[in-house]
């Protein structure tokens, strides 16, 4: 990119000294400058991502662990005490950058995610778990964001968000 920028700079000097930048040469020059500012990044064109949001409830009452929450359980069980994990809702949507995906929580509040940007280092997500936390996170495809969203019905609400994109 640096070389391309330098090349574009040299081209600008040569051409503006002589005949100006009109016509095809000007278009090429503008194209090169646009490329320098990152306009041709392959992931920049990515306009929507797939989001999966899951709402679950942990409880200290003995019971099963929902297999849909198996991946979360494998990590949470080491650090947090609970006996059962029940999945209340799972929603999947394709969400464009700057779009919003919202799910209702059983405590009357809601959780929402807004993809702000998708780049080589992952998707930048603005997450708002109403009444709990507001988080901005940059997650790679498949990375799981898990939020303990406070007490509810004798247990604890868990909201997970998983972005997927090519």
């Amino acid at each position, binding site marked *: 990119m640096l070389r391309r920028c330098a090349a574009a700079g040299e081209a600008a000097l040569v051409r503006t000294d002589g005949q100006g930048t009109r016509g095809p040469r000007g278009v090429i020059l503008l194209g090169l400058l646009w490329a320098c500012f990152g306009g041709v990044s392959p992931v920049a064109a990515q306009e929507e991502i797939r989001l999966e949001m899951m709402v679950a409830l942990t409880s200290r009452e003995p019971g099963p662990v929902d297999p849909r929450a198996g991946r979360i359980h494998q990590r949470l069980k080491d650090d947090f005490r609970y006996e059962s994990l029940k999945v209340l809702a799972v929603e999947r949507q394709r969400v464009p950058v700057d779009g919003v995906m919202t799910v209702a929580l059983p405590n009357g509040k809601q959780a929402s995610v807004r993809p702000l940007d998708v780049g080589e280092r992952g998707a*930048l997500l603005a997450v708002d778990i109403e009444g709990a936390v*507001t988080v*901005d996170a940059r997650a790679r495809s498949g990375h*799981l964001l898990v939020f*303990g*969203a406070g007490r509810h019905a004798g247990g604890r609400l868990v909201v997970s968000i998983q972005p997927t994109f090519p």
Partner: protein
Amino acid sequence: MSLPERERARLYRYYDGEMSWLGASWFALRLRRSTSLRAALAELEQLTRSVKRVAADETAAEAPELWRGIEASLPEVDAEWATARERPPERARSPRADRLRVFGWPGLSAASAAAVLVAVLVLRFAGEGTPAPALSQGAGVVRYLDSGGAPVVVIEDDERAMTIVWMVDPL
């Protein structure tokens, strides 16, 4: 960090090395001129450091229950907190204070010290024209966190590709 959403997104892209060379250089110039941007960047750096410190805390990682580990360290925290309150403000900052900020205890923020350090780094590489990724080595997943003052634990588990943000009950 009270930046508009668009501005915040630009800052994250800069921090993550997602900007092109020219874009990053332009943003670095803006950083030199904008106190609020520098403060926001400093907060971001501080949060990343704090989260990493918590994630690397062996006590928390090895305890069968995270809260038990935190609870065990509270007397030490209380002692430091009491000592810190008696010191002049500029001497009240300690490594422990960074972690407390993540957990949501008020009053021990080290952001101002970090702001000075980060501003120096930013100005230095901006002057040399170095692209932004130098700052972003090893950046974590969480970029910004607001729990309204409630205690929160953040666990970043790279191996399992999972980040946990967990509100804990105050004592």
